[in-house]
């Protein structure tokens, strides 16, 4: 069984693509950055479905979708090597495409045949005198991990070769990492809200991937006082590289959703950065006030219609932890099963379960590591008695499932409500909606409660 082994021999309907897909999404979210794929011809097209339609119908953006330049490794390159084809593609890309940053993303075939990409990059840079856009290389072979790894890989390349090293650090300037474009379908909305609340306590904030950010901000990110990584998984390895190259420390925490989580997140940040306590508290009071002003609008219907639910959460580590805590502490719901869907090494699992302390009544009992969609139901009924036909059987009801689009059939099968919050989401369209912070949490309440009243 997949739960018992370290790495399952297969995954049913994996909820991520490969590093190449994650890297494409990450580059595509940077202003006027353009990816150049050094991979087989179909890798990009195939990944596009994953980072567009499956990501809340995220559009092709500036140079995404079918526009992404690609070397298209074929039999000839497999046999004779593909470096020359990549060089040719880079030169022609410069002629056709208007880019301010180029990121070569290498896929499976390129990395197996062992093309010397560093040599290609070196010779590109040697010709940089003619005002070419900077070029970095992100390794993203499919066999190296999943799409989240691709996010990290692009960041690492940027931190090593694009962000300008500086000894001077600016007091009160921070960078945010860990929110993965496309793979967190609500990434841009989340980043916008995180910036808003951090600015609210007096910080200068770089989010890199929103409309407001520029490549100059990224280039100059080396003088930050702190890197905040709002995920225990994504961006952590990249933050290590940042520390090594630029000497900036990092603070790893969970994505805050709701007034309670956001307040403790901001207090922690304030403590790390030695901010003025009174100013921070004043902001928190005002935000809390505004938040409950809206949040409490559900009170009449909640009380009359009994909106409390048993809950199943199906999510990657980052969202699972945050959603569990939000459901328990803000909605007053009862998470009974939390299925963590990203592959986690056996040794790391105890630490992941540990993160749910406070968010769940009994993390050890509630959290499972299960990537396979069809097995979620099995996991639930290992924890909740199966219908036995007896008169006083207690059904798993009223229930709700917060997961991805893939979990809708499971929700239907147990008569539960359903909302797609985690990747993949092909059944919703997401623009600037976010679920983080105060304002994001209000959206989450709107969407969850709307799912309950949709038939009224």
């Amino acid at each position, binding site marked *: 069984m997949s739960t018992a082994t370290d790495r399952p021999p297969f995954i049913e309907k994996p909820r991520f693509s*490969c590093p190449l897909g994650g890297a494409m999404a990450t580059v595509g979210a940077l202003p006027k950055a353009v990816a150049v794929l050094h991979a087989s011809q179909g890798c990009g097209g195939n990944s596009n479905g994953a980072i567009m339609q499956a990501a809340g119908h995220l559009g092709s953006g500036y140079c995404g979708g079918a526009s*992404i330049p690609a070397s298209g490794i074929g039999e000839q390159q497999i046999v004779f090597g593909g470096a020359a084809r990549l060089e040719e593609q880079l030169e*022609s890309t410069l002629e056709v495409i208007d880019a301010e940053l180029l990121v070569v993303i290498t896929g499976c075939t390129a990395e197996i045949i062992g093309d010397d990409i560093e040599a290609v990059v070196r010779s590109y840079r040697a010709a940089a005198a003619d005002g070419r856009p900077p070029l970095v290389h992100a390794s993203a072979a499919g*066999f190296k991990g999943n799409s989240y790894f691709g996010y990290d890989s692009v960041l690492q390349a940027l931190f090593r070769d694009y962000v300008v090293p500086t000894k001077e650090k600016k007091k009160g300037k921070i960078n945010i990492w860990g929110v993965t474009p496309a793979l967190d379908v609500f990434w841009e909305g989340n980043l916008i809200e995180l910036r808003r609340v951090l600015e609210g306590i007096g910080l200068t904030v770089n989010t890199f991937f929103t409309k407001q950010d520029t490549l100059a901000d990224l280039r100059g990110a080396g003088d930050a006082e702190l890197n905040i990584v709002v995920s225990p998984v994504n961006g952590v390895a990249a933050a290590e590289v940042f520390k090594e190259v630029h000497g900036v420390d990092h603070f790893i925490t969970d994505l805050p959703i709701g007034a309670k989580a956001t307040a403790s997140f901001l207090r922690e940040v304030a403590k790390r950065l030695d901010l003025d306590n009174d100013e921070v508290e004043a902001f928190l009071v005002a935000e809390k006030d505004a938040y409950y002003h809206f949040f409490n609008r559900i009170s009449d219907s909640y009380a009359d219609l009994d909106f409390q639910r048993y809950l199943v959460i199906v999510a990657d580590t980052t969202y699972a932890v945050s959603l569990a805590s939000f459901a328990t502490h803000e909605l007053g719901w009862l998470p009974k099963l939390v299925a963590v869907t990203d592959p986690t090494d056996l040794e790391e699992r105890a630490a992941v379960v540990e993160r749910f302390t406070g968010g769940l009544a009994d993390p050890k009992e509630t959290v499972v590591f299960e990537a396979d969609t069809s097995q979620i139901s099995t996991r639930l009924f290992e924890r909740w008695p199966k219908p036995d036909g007896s008169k006083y059987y207690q059904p798993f009801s009223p229930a709700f499932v917060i997961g991805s689009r893939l979990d809708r059939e499971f929700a239907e099968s147990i008569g539960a409500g359903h909302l797609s919050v985690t990747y993949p989401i092909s059944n919703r369209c997401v623009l600037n909606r976010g679920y983080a912070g105060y304002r994001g949490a209000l959206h989450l309440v709107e969407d969850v409660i709307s799912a309950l009243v949709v038939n009224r």
Partner: protein
Amino acid sequence: MSYLHLKVPPTRDIRLRPCNAYGGNLENLVCGQKEGCLSNNGRTFAQTTGCQLTLAMGMAASIPNTVVIYHGPVGCGAGSLGLAGQSKMSQQARGNDDAVGRVWMSTNLSEVDIVSGGEKKLEAAILEAERRFRPHAIFIGNTCVPAIIGDDIDNVATRLQDRVNARIIPLHCEGFKTRFVATAYDIVYHGILRYLLGNQHDRKPIIEDEAAQIAYELRRKKTVNLLNVGSMGYVDEVELVRLLNAIGLEANVYPCFTSPEKFVKVKDAALSISICATHDDYFVEHLKEHYGVPYVLNTIPIGTDNVRLWLLDVADFFGIREEALKVIAAEEAELNKALEPLRKSFVGKTAFVSTGEIRAGAQACMLENDLGIKVVGIRAHHYDEFGEIVFENFKDRDDVTINVAANQPFEQVNLLRRLKPDLYLGHGNSNVWAAKQGVPVLPIYGPNNSYLGYKGIFEVASRLERILSNPRWYNTLGETTQLPYKESWYEQDPYLYIRQTTEAA
């Protein structure tokens, strides 16, 4: 041509020597294709496109009661994530109430597997697919990585076949092996021919009943295979079956959306009817050779000219031309009446068409001859010997630009800036780049819409009329979006980056 003894059928690159990089007039294309001097053309600037794996597995996954296993790293197949509900809807449309969405697995090959091989993982996946889903068939799609490291999926399939009830069908659809995504059709049909048909035995009646036998034979003589590789929505199937019924034929639809256990009947049909040579030439030829089922595959029934050609091809085979002509006359008269009020909104309009070669040619012809819209350019994903019939209409037409490319929006934006069409009819992934130039778009195929037969003509006309009646969303998009191309690119020859390789390799 029989390739069924081979584990892997030849790629289109070798079998048909098509071209996928060309720009210019039709004459040079047809000529160059015949001489075989275009098939090695490439591009020195290229943009990402699909691979045969994605197409092959999409086709396989649309067959009910199957599981598809991507044997490879976790990203091959990730495109399915955007389509989670799609095949369920398609199957439900055809009356399958128990339809489940697409069921797929990935063997998630890791760095370790690159060294030690991935066959063990594939075995585990097959056994678990059988245990969890009890499918009729399990398709294994081999991807680039295991092909390079030398996994033997045929061996795994043979080894496990005795242990599972599902028919195991290995598909060699590694992306890097072909430049022509359409090879995917051959791969899936090859799997069906070799593993489903080759192994199904005709059901012998338990009690021989002579009368029943005669009745069956009579029926068989009027029963045809209508082939759908997934590009035909249910409404299109219904329309074509209606037309075939009208000339006295019964039709069964294969292979998509039909459960594998029903495939055995494909061998009994009197005729196979293709709607597109790009899809079916490999399959119908093999059906003929191995099971004696003749076929027609000249054209796709889009637009009155091609519907007529298609239907008469079928009728001629059965010797019922007169009946067919009567049906055609009645249908055309009725259609013309319905089209009349729509035609005025098309006066003076121009269009650009982009999709697979057969559909592109026929759709362009339909726009001109049925609706009076002038076609200014046609793009085909590839071009091969089957294109000539559908492109006939555009012979000697110097006012129509011909471009052969799979996606490659950079060529398209350059062309559209020059041609400024009023309408764009195109394939997924290309449409948006026309839309971003402010050109109103009609997707040229889709599972929920009608395109084929007489109903398809009317439906496309009325959708075009609707789109033209308020193109503001497109206009605004064109005004507010920025394309990634340098201004200087639009002044260049759109075909600047096509690499001509003259020697016929």
